[in-house]
């Protein structure tokens, strides 16, 4: 508990987390409102469409999470931290937990915020949360944000430099995964197992034909297993990062 409190103090006594949190909310809710506000009345939008902004929100969340680690390396406070608490594994796990929790809260605010705003803008569309899939689509945004934040913390620990870590995370999640599917023959098969694509499967399931927004994920796992796969990927990456940090000179 002490370590969680320490990481909470560290996170909230600098400015960048507040800015990143704000930007994430604006993007996640803003995209939902944009689509709800601009789609012609003749087209009915569904719950999944209101959450379209999560793709970009998750990128900003990963910036927040990576920065929480890389700025510590940049300014040497990681050394002060390891000096105060020599058990590096516990410190880094506590950091991932605190950042993940913050991402969860931001994600829930963003997910429900986007859905609520769209409901206000489109009173004539059926945007009620009637099915489990629709609930997952809204409430799951926070869960994905939390897991993505842990991935970003792990990458931050491994790379230690802000620019490098952020570039890798953004280029990978926004571009590399979709480019992989362009590789002839094997590409699409690999793409089915790439983590952010699988995460999308958890959130949106397999929306029916005719739905707005990006095409559904081609991952073969069921939404439940997709979540487990994404979370497992984050935990393995985190375990590797902690292992490396323990062996390395601070």
């Amino acid at each position, binding site marked *: 508990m*002490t*370590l969680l*409190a*320490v990481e909470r*103090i*560290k996170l909230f*006594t*600098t*400015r*960048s987390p507040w800015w990143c949190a704000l930007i994430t909310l604006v993007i996640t809710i803003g995209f939902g409102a944009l689509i709800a506000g601009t789609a012609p009345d003749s087209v009915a939008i569904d719950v999944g469409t209101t959450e379209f902004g999560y793709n970009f929100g998750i990128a900003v969340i990963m910036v927040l999470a990576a920065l929480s680690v890389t*700025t*510590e390396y940049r*300014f*040497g*406070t990681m*050394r*002060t*931290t*390891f*000096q*105060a*608490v*020599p*058990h590096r594994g516990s410190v880094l796990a506590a950091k991932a937990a605190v950042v993940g929790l913050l991402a969860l809260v931001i994600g829930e605010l963003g997910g429900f915020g986007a859905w609520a705003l769209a409901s206000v803008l489109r009173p004539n569309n059926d945007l009620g949360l009637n099915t489990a899939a629709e609930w997952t689509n809204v409430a799951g945004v926070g869960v994905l944000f939390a897991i993505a934040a842990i991935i970003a913390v792990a990458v931050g620990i491994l790379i230690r430099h802000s620019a490098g870590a952020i570039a890798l995370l953004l280029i990978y999640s926004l571009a590399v995964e979709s480019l992989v599917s362009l590789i002839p023959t094997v590409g699409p098969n690999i793409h089915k197992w790439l983590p952010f694509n699988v995460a999308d499967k958890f959130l949106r399931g397999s929306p029916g034909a005719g739905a707005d927004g990006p095409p559904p994920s081609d991952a073969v796992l069921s939404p439940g297993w997709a979540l487990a796969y994404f979370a497992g990927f984050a935990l393995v990456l985190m375990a590797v990062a902690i292992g490396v940090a323990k*062996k390395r*000179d*601070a």
Partner: protein
Amino acid sequence: MIEAVGLTKRYGQTVAVNNLSFSVEGGKVTGFLGPNGAGKSTTMRMILGLDNPTSGQVRIGGKLYRDLKDPLRTVGALLDAKWVHPNRSARAHLSWMARSNNIPARRVDEVLDVVGLSTVAKKSAGGFSLGMSQRLGIAAALLGDPEVLLFDEPVNGLDPEGILWIRKFMHRLADEGRTVFVSSHLLSEMALTASQLLVIGKGQLISHSSTEDFVSRAAENTVKVRSPQLPLLREVLIRASAEVTDADTALVVAGMDSDKIGEIAAANSIVLHELSPQTGSLEQAFMQITGDSVEYHTGIETEAKHALAPTAQ
């Protein structure tokens, strides 16, 4: 209190610290002296468990650093005053450190007061001058009221007032019975601060003795004597087996202190106009002792000769 045994650190082919064994006692200021790149900071990082030794180990009060419970309560350290997030306030910086070692929050204000930073406690540390950062680092080191204190080059870049403050402060800490281990590359500074000296060069132990011993061993002590009866004086001094060299209108005597020279002169009824002990420059002495172990020779003398050669002709 601090005990290193066979401490070695290699970075690839380079040996930063080579089989270093020493012990640092409590109640004294021990200086850790060596030229830049001698391995002082690496040794300090290994003491704090930040760098892993390639071989050997270092214990504090019999324990490895990582086995200390709430280590800030046992060891306080200032390795680099800039290890602070620039957007975080001084108080916030100390708050998380205090929290991590179960140190009561009021202690934060206490140490800020001790180092005289109470008025800027809420200001971002990024705006601090070097002197203020150094004080904040010292506040952080004192946070857990530790037995052992490590300071790495604490006076580097400080103004004379700041240097004096830190020097007095370290004496106070040692007088309270704490172990104070402070590194520097300046012998003149260490001569004023430390009572024990641990000297290293190229990662190896060169000497471990009291500062006095080191200085007197290092500096060649001579006595300058002037007298209207120089030839007679020279004769009697040589007879008393002193080493005498002529220097214009004076004699420079080695291997004999001024008391003895005065007594010999009086016994022979020789008038003295000057009798002054000469202490060799500490820096010179230090360079003489660590000379072969300096990592980066500048070859500045040769360069100067080359540069001056054309003008001389």
